[in-house]
C-alpha cells in the first residue's frame, strides 16, 4: 500500500476519532513526543545531530517528517508516566473509603516509533506484564490498560545518529521484526527524498510504503481508503522499502568516528559475565569522577522502570493519594534501607546502572535492558557513553584488588 502525504494527514484524522494521537514534533529545540493535531505538526525538514551530551536540530529541506531519530521522550513517558496516582482514600465520618478510580483515559495511538522504540516496548512489557511466563504474576494494571489500547505506527529509520547503536544490540534499525518481537499495527517507510547522511533509496515524490501488521491496522487503512483511493505498492517500491533498514544497518557497521576509529557499537558477547566478574574494576572509580549522579540517563532510558510509591496526605488528614513516581539508581534514596543508603558513592551507583541494565536484567527478564537507542549518551549532561565504559572494561578485564566502590 502506498500512502501519499494526504493519506498521512488522513491517517492522523482517522486515528483521532478513537485515540489520543501522539507523535514527534519540534519543541524547545528538540524532537519531542506530543499530541499531534495534524501532519503539519510533524518535524518535516528537520534532522538532529547527536553526540555525547550534545543535541542540535538542523534544517534540511530534503528531510521528510521522520528523518530525525529518537529524541528525549519515549513510549515510556506515556505508558509508564513520570507521576501517576494509583489509589485515593478519603475518610468520611471516621471511616476510610477507597475512591473510585478515575475514568479511563482515551487509548493512545503513537506515530513514528522506531526499531529501538518497539524493542524497548517489548522489554517493558516483560517488566510490567510478567505473568504469561508462569513465573508468578506481576502485572501492572495501569500499564496493561494503556498497553492493550495502544495503536502503533512504526517507521523505518533512514538515518542514524552517531549515538544510535541498535545495529549492535539487535534492536534495529528495522522497525518491525517478527523474530525479535517488534510489531506494529502499521509500518511506514518513507520513499521520498531524504537527507544526504542517510539512505534514501528512491527518487520521486514523498510517499510511504505501508505494511499492515494487525486487524486494527487494516481497519484504519480501510477507513482511509474509503475516501482517498490508495494504490498497492509497485514491486520496485516494495523492494526499495525493504532495502532501507538493510542499507542503514550496513552503513552503521561501516561508520567511523571523526578520529578514524570505529563508530559506536556495543559488544554484547558475554556481557553479563564480563561485568559481573569486574565488579572491582578501577573503571568504576574513573567514570565516577565524571558522573554527576544526576539521574538523566535512567530517566531518558526507554526501559528503566524504577519507581517509588508514596502516600500523599492532604492537610485535612482526611484524604490520601497513593502516588507512583519515577526513581533512579543514581539517587541516594534509591538504595536507602534501614535508614541509610547502601550506595553512597557515585561509583557504586554507576555500577548499579550498568550491571543492572546489561547484566541483572538478563537474569530477571531474559534479555538485556539496552536497545541501543543512545538516549542515555545524548542526554547525559557530560556525555558519558556506556559503550565506551563497557569497552574500557572489556579491554582490561583485570579484577582489581582495590576497595569496592
Amino acid at each position: 500500500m502506498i500512502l501519499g502525504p494526504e493519506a498521512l494527514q488522513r491517517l492522523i484524522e482517522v486515528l483521532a476519532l478513537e485515540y489520543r494521537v501522539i507523535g514527534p514534533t519540534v519543541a524547545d529545540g528538540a524532537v519531542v513526543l506530543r499530541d499531534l493535531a495534524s501532519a503539519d505538526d510533524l518535524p518535516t525538514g528537520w534532522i538532529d545531530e547527536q553526540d555525547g551530551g550534545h543535541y542540535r536540530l538542523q534544517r534540511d529541506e530534503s528531510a521528510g517528517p521522520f528523518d530525525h531519530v529518537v529524541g528525549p521522550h519515549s513510549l515510556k513517558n506515556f505508558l509508564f508516566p513520570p507521576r501517576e496516582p494509583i489509589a485515593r482514600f478519603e475518610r468520611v465520618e471516621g471511616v476510610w473509603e477507597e475512591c473510585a478510580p478515575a475514568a479511563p483515559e482515551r487509548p493512545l495511538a503513537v506515530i513514528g516509533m522506531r526499531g529501538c522504540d518497539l524493542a524497548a516496548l517489548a522489554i517493558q512489557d516483560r517488566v510490567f506484564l510478567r505473568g504469561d511466563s508462569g513465573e508468578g504474576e506481576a502485572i501492572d494494571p495501569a500499564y496493561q490498560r494503556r498497553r492493550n489500547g495502544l495503536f502503533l505506527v512504526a517507521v523505518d529509520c533512514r538515518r542514524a545518529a552517531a549515538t544510535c547503536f541498535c545495529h549492535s544490540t539487535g534492536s534495529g534499525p528495522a522497525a518491525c521484526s517478527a523474530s525479535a518481537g517488534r510489531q506494529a499495527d502499521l509500518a511506514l517507510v518513507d520513499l521520498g527524498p531524504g537527507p544526504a547522511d542517510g539512505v534514501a533509496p528512491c527518487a520521486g515524490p514523498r510517499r510511504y510504503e505501508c505494511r499492515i501488521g494487525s486487524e486494527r491496522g487494516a481497519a484504519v487503512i480501510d477507513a482511509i481508503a474509503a475516501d482517498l483511493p490508495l494504490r498497492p505498492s509497485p514491486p520496485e517500491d516494495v523492494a526499495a522499502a525493504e532495502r532501507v533498514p538493510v542499507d542503514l544497518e550496513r552503513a552503521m557497521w561501516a561508520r567511523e568516528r571523526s578520529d578514524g576509529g570505529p563508530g559506536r557499537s556495543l559488544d554484547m558477547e558475554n556481557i553479563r559475565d564480563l561485568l559481573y566478574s569486574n565488579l572491582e574494576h578501577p573503571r568504576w572509580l574513573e567514570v565516577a569522577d565524571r558522573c554527576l549522579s544526576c539521574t538523566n540517563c535512567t530517566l531518558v532510558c526507554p526501559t528503566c522502570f524504577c519507581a517509588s510509591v508514596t502516600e500523599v496526605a492532604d492537610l485535612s488528614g482526611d484524604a490520601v493519594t497513593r502516588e507512583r513516581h519515577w526513581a533512579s539508581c543514581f539517587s541516594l534514596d534509591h538504595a536507602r534501607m534501614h535508614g541509610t543508603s547502601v550506595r553512597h558513592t557515585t561509583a557504586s551507583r554507576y555500577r548499579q546502572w550498568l550491571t543492572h541494565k546489561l547484566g541483572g536484567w538478563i537474569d530477571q527478564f531474559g534479555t538485556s535492558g539496552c536497545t541501543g537507542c543512545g538516549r542515555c549518551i545524548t542526554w547525559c549532561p557530560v556525555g558519558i557513553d556506556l559503550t565506551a565504559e563497557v569497552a574500557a572494561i572489556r579491554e582490561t578485564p583485570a579484577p582489581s584488588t582495590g576497595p569496592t566502590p
Partner: protein
Amino acid sequence: MTNPLPAKIAVAAPAHVRRPRVAVYKFASCDGCQLQFLAAIGKHPELLSKVDFVHFLEASRAVEPGPYDIGFVEGSVTTAHDAERIREIRRECRTLVTIGACATSGGIQALRNWGKIDEFVAAVYASPAFISTLATSTAIAEHVPVDFELRGCPIDTGQLVEILTALIVGRKPRVPSTSVCAECKAEGVVCVAVARGVPCLGPVTQAGCRAICPAHGRGCFGCFGPSDTPNLVSLNLHYEAAGVPRDELLRLVHGINAWAPPFRAEADRLAAAPHVKVAAP
C-alpha cells in the same frame, strides 16, 4: 499490582491534637520566603486551622510569648547580635526549621565572605561608623543545631505545606534530594544544556522548584543548593571544554548558594586554577 486494602477501613477517631504553636523569624534576608507562607495560606486557608502562627511579624504585630513548637527561620547571620539572637531562638523552639537559601547557606549576601567588609561598608553607607556587622554571612546551622532545612530562593509553597503537614502529624517530611534534572525529566522539559548549550547548574542542584528555569529555556541558577552527591568539577570541566568562559561559570557558582560548601569549594577552584584557554565554539 492489586490493592491490598479493603475498600472500607474503620479506624478509631484520632485523639484531639493540639494545634502546634509556630513562630516565624527573620534574619538577613529579603522576606521572600516569609511571603511564601502567606502564599501557602492563600492557597490552603485550612492551614490556619491546623497551626497557630503566634509569632509572625510579617503577618501580624500580635506576638505571643514562647516557647514554640516549631520555629521557622529565614535569613542568614550577619551581625554579632544575630549570632546571639539565634541561640535564644533555638532555646525557645522545640523544632527549628531553616527556610531558604539565606538561612541554609548564607544566601547571595555571602558573596561578602570573599571580599573586604570595611570596603563594602564604606562604599554603601554615608556614616560607616554607625554600622556594626560581621565580616561574613553564614547559615543558621553554622551557629545552632537545625532540625530540618527547606531549601530554595524562595522556598516552594508545595514543600512548605508538605513540611507543615508532616510536622502536624509527626512524620518525616518528604523532600527530594535528587537533582533538578529529575524534575526536568518528570516534567518532560527538554534539557537546555544538551539541546542549546546553556550552562545549567541543575545536575548539581537539589530538586524542589519543578525545573522552573529550564522550563522557560534558562539554565538553573542553583537556588535549591547542592544535590545529595554534587560533582561540580566534572560539570564545569565539561562546560569549559564546550566553550563556556570560566568567568561565566564562576558567576554561576557565585550565586544564590555561593557559600554552600560544595559551591564554595568549586568557586575557589575556578578562581584559583590557571585560566584555560578555550577555542571559540
